[in-house]
Structure formats: structure tokens, C-alpha cells
């Protein structure tokens, strides 16, 4: 996988479905043969991955919301998105068909 560029507009893959878990009430991401339980950070990141904002804008937005230094946020966000990319749950212009 090539590194994500700050100008890309990440978008949650349509193969994934976000819903709340009937048993625990927690947000979960369902996809073929898998499930990801989202923590509040994950939920905040994914909520912004609609294909409209660039990665840079997402980081700026989260840094403001969490009042955290952008370089820390950037590291966390990129690591999280890379995890999603590894299981093919993120579309970027390079991967969108």
C-alpha cells in the first residue's frame, strides 16, 4: 500500500455498513465476513470519511474538536485509516472503481 496523501478524500467503502449493535448499543462497522467495533475516536474519524473532505481537512477538524496538536492527530488518523485500507474498507480516488 502506498502512503495516504493529505490531498486524498477518503471515503468509507460501500461494502461496509455502520450501525449500532443490538446487544451492546455500541457503533459497529459490518462488512463481508467481518465486524469492527468502533471506539469514540474511530467513530469520529469515520464520520468524516464521506469522500468530501481531504485527509488534511479531516485532521484539522479532529484536531480542533479534540483540542489536540495536529501532528499527534495526524499520526493516529493515518494509522487508523491504514488499518481500514488493509481490509479494503476505505475508498480513495486511487482505489475507487
Amino acid at each position, binding site marked *: *500500500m502506498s502512503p495516504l496523501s493529505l490531498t486524498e478524500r477518503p471515503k468509507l467503502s*460501500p*461494502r461496509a455498513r455502520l450501525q449500532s449493535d*443490538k446487544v451492546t448499543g455500541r457503533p459497529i462497522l*459490518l462488512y*463481508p*465476513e467481518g465486524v469492527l467495533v468502533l471506539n469514540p475516536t474511530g467513530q469520529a474519524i469515520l464520520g468524516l470519511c464521506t469522500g468530501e473532505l481531504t485527509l488534511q481537512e479531516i485532521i484539522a477538524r479532529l484536531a480542533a474538536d479534540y483540542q489536540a496538536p495536529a501532528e499527534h492527530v495526524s499520526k493516529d488518523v493515518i494509522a487508523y485509516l491504514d488499518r481500514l*485500507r488493509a481490509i*479494503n474498507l476505505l475508498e480513495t480516488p486511487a482505489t475507487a*472503481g
Partner: protein
Amino acid sequence: MVQPAPRPFSLLAEVTHRCPLHCPYCSNPTEFPPVGDELTTAEWRRVLNEAAEMGVLHVGFSGGEPLQRPDLAGLVAAARSAGLYSNLITSAVGLSRDRAAELRTAGLDSVQISFQSDEEPLANLIAGTRVHAKKLEAAALVRELGFPLTINVVLHRANIGRLPQIIALAEKLDAERLELANTQFYGWAFQNRLALLPTRAQIREAVEISFAAKERLKGRMEVIFVAPDYYADRPKPCMHGWGSRHLTVNPRGDVLPCPTAGGIKSLRFENIREKSLHWIWAGSESFNRFRGTEWMPQPCQSCEFREIDFGGCRCQAALLTEDAANTDPACALSPFRDRLAGIVESVQDAPAAAFAGGPGGIVYRENPR
């Protein structure tokens, strides 16, 4: 001490055992109950709702060929309204444009199409019928309608040499997931295991090719290689443990811990026509028989891997040792290891069997009557 039952996460809904294909590696039972016994639409709706209430998240509509059920879209809609993520596990035979659009509208989430090979003559020979061209059309249709597509190819001695071409086909079809699943020897496949089991050299090469593809395609297509447990030293952690995460409901409503458990003749499986799905999952003798680790014989009982591979597969133990409670012979520590090793050694230098039916040849899957 009785532990509370764990939460189930996935349901395999085998809505019919009827299938237009005759693949000799099919893991369906070789003896079917009569077709007329299939669950009704209303009974399946009940199963789906009860499963969702218990915490199940994924439902796979399978079979046989699930498209043989005219009410499939209704079942998909019921799954969707229950909050289940649905996957259609299909040969694609019967997936017309109208049918696919109907399933899309009903809320189907993803589609998994089986391929027998990348090249038409071999693919049709394996399926026992002319279906390859239809599958190609259906796969294109699935992507056109926006479904995520998984391609599943069951690997065996006759097609494992086509692995690079099979991977290329999945890329061309724009699959997001490719399952390269070595034949698991249950049902019809068990009868044909001497013809289907690849050689050690074939497996070694296949592992290399598939792992290279996995790396190369990361982020575009997920490549899953299911290794053949006949060549393993440790058994597969079958179903992540008996009655631990998964349940299967077969066409007549029997509830099974895995799709092939019906072959274990020492167990009596409960039916949703008589009991609730929850009662069967949590309270039935069949689901509790091999839960946890207390049932385990030696060497499993004192093995450091007992909660990693759970003693392997109960169905395989039953098939190869006549007792489902024995250690799976796919484990090198099993006292019955020789039963599997004998089969493995016998295929190494044997010429590949001709892929044809008839006396002495491959047994093609037949349909329930």
C-alpha cells in the same frame, strides 16, 4: 459448572440443498432429506429474527443454490430489517438482471460467487454442467449493480495449478475479496478425496503464489488462502470452537454448529419447528456437547493449544476415527494421525485421476429428490 452460552455472531442459512451444479467437492451431505421438508418463508423469517435478537450480525444465504428459492428476496428483506448484514453465497446460476435488482432493492449487502476455474472447459468439467459463461456475466452484473463481490474458488488437484490465472480472473472481475479455499473433505468431497487432494509440491507452490498476490493486492482485493488441513501439523480452529460463534440452519430446520455437523451420527440435532433458536443454541445437548474444553480427551485436555484450535474439527474426527470426541487427526499429536497421513502419502506419486464420472472415477454431486 455450566457456563452461560457465548454470543453467536454468524448464521449460515442453507435455504435449500437443491443445486444446478454437481461439483464433486461439495460439502453438502451425501444423503439429503426429501425436498418437500424445506422451511417455509415464514419459518425462515422467524429464524432470522431470532438470530438477530441473539446477537448474530452476519447471515450467509447458502445452500445448495439459494437462488432456487423464489422467496429469496423476501428472506433478504427480513434479514435487512432485522439488522443483519447479508451475503448471498451463490453459483450465480439463476442470477438474472431482474433477480439481482430485486435482491439489491431487498437490501442484500454482498455477493459471493463460486468459480471452478478460470478457463471454461475445465470449469464446466468440474461443475458437471455448462455454467462458466453464465458466471462471468453474473459477476459483471453484480459489480454493475454496486454489490461488493467475493469470488470463491475451491482448490483441488485439478485446478490448483491454475492459481495465477484464477487470481487474474478475480482482478478482472473487480472482486473485492478472493477466497482460495482448499477443499475440505466432508460430504461429497470426502468420497472423492483421493482424486481431489493436491500433492505437497502443489500446495507449496500455491502458498507462495497466493501470499505474493495477497501482498501485491493489499488495499484493493483481500486474498484469503484457506490451507488444506491434511497438510497441517496443527488442526484448524474449526468454527472458533463448537457452539462458540456460529450456527447453521439447514433446509429442513435442523440447527447445527457447522454446515457439516449433520454427518455426526452420534448426535441428535434439534429443529426450529420444535424449539426456539435461542433454546437450541444455549440449552441443547448437541450444542453443549463440545463447548469449552472439558469434553476434550488427551492429548487435547492438557495441550497448551486447546483454546487456540479447540482440538480441531469434530466432523473430521468423526469421519476419520468414528468418534467425534477424538482429537482431529489433522493435529500431529493425534493418536489417529496415521489415518490421515496414509491418505496424504498415497496421493504424492499417484498420477492425477481423470476428472470424469463413471466407475472408478469421480463421484459428482447429485440433488435431493
